[in-house]
C-alpha cells in the first residue's frame, strides 16, 4: 500500500475533522515538543561558548571541544582524562541500573500478585494505596525521605532505641536515601506495565505447569517471565531512563560527596552559564541511555514493537 492510499484510508476511517486534529496534535507533540528542541540542543552542543554579542558572528563555528572536555578534561589539567566527570557519568549509569534492578525485584512479585488475583475490593485498595503517594509532589516526597533517613530520622531513632546500633548510620552519605528515594519514585512505572501483561496471562497455563510437576521458580522462569518480558522491559526502560535523568532526588537525597550526572549538566546550564557544554553533556547522557536500553533489549531478545503491547 502506498502512502497516499494510507492517508486516504486514514481520513476515510476517522473523518476529516478528527483525522486532522489527531494528525496535527501528534505532529505538534513529536516535532515541536520533542524533535526541534532536541535538535537545537544538539546544535548548541557543537558550538563555542561565546558571550551573546558574538553569537552568530565569525567566531560562532562548529566544534567538538565540549565533548573533548568531557573525555579529556580542561586543556593543561593534571590528568589525561576528565576523571571527575567521567566518574560521575559512570556512577550515575551504574546507580540508575541498580535502581532499575531494585525496582524490578520489588515490583515483579507485587505485579504478579495483583495481575493474577481476580479483581476484588482488596486488590483495588492495594492499587489505590500505590497511587495515593503520587498525589504528593516530588520535592515534598524527597524531603520526607530525608527526614526518615536523616541522622536523627525515624529509622535511626528506632534502631537506636531498640539498641540495634550505638551511633546513627549516615544513610544520606551512603546514598541509601538516594537509592530508596529514586526506587520509590518510579515504582509505579515498573508495576503497571508488568501488571498489565500478567493480567492477560491465562491462569490455566500456570496450573498446567504445576500439574506437570514444575516448581514455583520454574513456573516463573519458563512461563510467567517469558510472557511478561514486554512489560518488564518497558518498565525497566522507563525506570532506567528516568533514574539516570533524575535531578530533584539526587539534589535533595544525594550524599555530599556523590554527584549525579544531571547535577553537573544543571550546573553547566545554570551556575556555569555554559549552555553548549551543558547541552553536550546532556546529549552524551541521552545517547548513552538509548544505547544501553537498546543493547539490553537485544540481549534479552525483546523487539521494540513488543513494548507497545
Amino acid at each position, binding site marked *: 500500500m502506498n502512502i497516499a492510499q494510507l492517508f486516504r484510508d486514514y481520513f476515510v476511517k476517522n473523518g476529516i475533522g478528527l483525522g486532522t486534529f489527531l494528525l496535527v496534535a501528534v505532529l505538534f507533540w513529536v516535532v515541536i515538543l520533542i524533535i526541534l528542541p532536541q535538535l537545537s540542543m544538539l546544535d548548541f552542543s557543537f558550538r563555542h561558548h561565546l558571550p551573546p554579542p558574538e553569537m552568530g558572528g565569525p567566531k560562532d563555528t562548529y566544534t567538538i571541544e565540549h565533548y573533548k572536555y568531557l573525555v579529556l578534561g580542561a586543556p593543561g589539567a593534571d590528568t589525561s582524562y576528565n576523571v571527575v566527570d567521567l566518574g560521575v557519568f559512570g556512577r550515575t549509569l551504574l546507580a540508575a541500573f541498580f535502581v532499575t534492578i531494585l525496582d524490578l525485584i520489588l515490583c515483579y512479585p507485587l505485579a504478579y500478585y495483583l495481575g493474577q488475583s481476580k479483581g476484588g475490593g482488596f486488590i483495588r485498595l492495594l492499587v489505590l494505596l500505590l497511587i495515593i503517594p503520587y498525589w504528593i509532589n516530588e520535592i515534598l516526597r524527597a524531603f520526607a525521605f530525608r527526614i526518615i533517613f536523616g541522622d536523627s530520622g525515624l529509622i535511626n531513632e528506632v534502631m537506636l532505641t531498640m539498641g540495634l546500633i550505638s551511633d546513627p548510620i549516615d544513610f544520606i552519605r551512603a546514598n541509601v536515601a538516594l537509592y530508596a528515594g529514586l526506587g520509590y519514585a518510579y515504582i509505579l512505572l515498573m508495576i503497571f506495565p508488568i501488571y498489565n501483561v500478567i493480567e492477560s496471562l*491465562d491462569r*490455566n*497455563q500456570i*496450573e*498446567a*505447569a*504445576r*500439574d*506437570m*510437576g*514444575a*516448581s514455583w521458580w*520454574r513456573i516463573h522462569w*519458563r*512461563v510467567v517471565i*517469558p*510472557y511478561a518480558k514486554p512489560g518488564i522491559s518497558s518498565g525497566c526502560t522507563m525506570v532506567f531512563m528516568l533514574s539516570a535523568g533524575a535531578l530533584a532526588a539526587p539534589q535533595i537525597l544525594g550524599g555530599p560527596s556523590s554527584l549525579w550526572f544531571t547535577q553537573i549538566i544543571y550546573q553547566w546550564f545554570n551556575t556555569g552559564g555554559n549552555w553548549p557544554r551543558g547541552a553536550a553533556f546532556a546529549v552524551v547522557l541521552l545517547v548513552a541511555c538509548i544505547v544501553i536500553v537498546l543493547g539490553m533489549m537485544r540481549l534479552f531478545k525483546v523487539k521494540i514493537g513488543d513494548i507497545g503491547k
Partner: protein
Amino acid sequence: MTKGVDVDLENVWIRFGDFVAVREANVNIKGGEFFSFLGPSGCGKTTILRSVSGFLEPSDGKVRIGGKDMAGIGPNKRPTALIFQNLALFPLMKVWENITFSMEVKGASKAERRKRADELLDMIALPDQGDKLPSELSGGQKQRVAIARALCAEPDVLLLDEPLSALDLKLRQHMRTELREIQQRVGITFIYITHDQGEALTMSDNVAVMRAGIIDQIGTGHSVYNDPATPFVASFVGENNVFRGKIKSIDGDMALVSTNRTGELLARIATSAQGKMNVGDSAMMFIRPEACNIAEDISPAANRFTARVKHEEFEGQIYNVFLEGAEGKEIKMSLVNVGKQRQSAEDNNLTLEYMPDQAVVLPAGELASE
C-alpha cells in the same frame, strides 16, 4: 505404558463458603476405565476434577488414587495429568518443548526430550511439527499436542476438562474416536468432563450424571439412557417426552399412569424406583421420541395416545413430528425416513403407540431445564 489405577471418591463434599459445589460424592472408577462426568454447566463436575488433580482439597471425604489417600498432596506430586478446556499450551514454547515440559521439570537432557517428543509427535500423527509454535497449528492439531503433553508425563490417570468444546462439530466427532483409541492404546484411566451427552455416551465405559452438586446416577451409557434413575437424568441425557400423572395401578415392574391430558399410559418402573412406588403417587413418565410410532390400529389402549400435530421437521435420516402436549409443551416423535410419503398432516389428530417397556416411570421430580 503404565496400567491405569483406580480413582475413588469417598463421601466427598466440596464447599465454597456457604455454597455446596459437590454433595456427598461416592464414585469408584476402575483402573483403565474411560469414565465421564456428565452434567450441565455449574453442576460441580469441574470441581470434582480439580479435587482429583489436586488444585482443590475436598472439604470433607477422601480422594484416593491407586488406593492412596491424596490429602495434602499437591497437583505437581499426583500421578495425574490434566488437559484444560482451553488446552493451556505454552504460547512461547515450541511444540516439542510444550510436549516434554514434564521431562524438563525432572531435569531430562535436551537430546532425551527431543527423542521422546518425536515419538509422541509420531503417535499423534504430527511428525516434523515439533519446531512450530502452538499458534501455528490448527485447532485439532493443538488438541493432539495437548494430549501428547499430558501423556508425556506418563500419568496413571488422565483428566480431561471438556477438551473438545472449542472444536467444530466434524472435528469433535473425529476427536471422540481418536481419544477413545488413544485411551485403549495407553490403557490408563481417563476421567472426562463434559456437558455433551453424545461425547459421554460414545466414549465412556461408565458415566456419572450430575445435577447441582449431586451425582444422580452412575452407570454405563446404556443404563443411563434406557434406565434413568431420576427425572433429571431422563430429561438431561438425550431427548425425552415427559408426561405427568398419578400411579393408577402397579403390576410387577409395570405401572399404569393416569395423566390429565393423554389418558392412561402403561410403562416400566425404572430400576431405581422399583418397589418404592405406590398407587396414588405422583409420577413422571418418559417416552423417547424414537420410541413413539404412528399407531396402525386406532382403538385406544394403555400404550396408545392421541395428540394434535403441530408441525413437522425433516432432518434427512429422520422426520420429527411435534404434537401438542400438556402444559403447552410439545411431544416429539422421531420417525426413520424410509422413503414413504409423510403420514401426518398439521392440525390433524394422530394416534401414537409405543412399547410399554421402552417407556419409564419415575417418582415426580426436578427436570433438566431446557
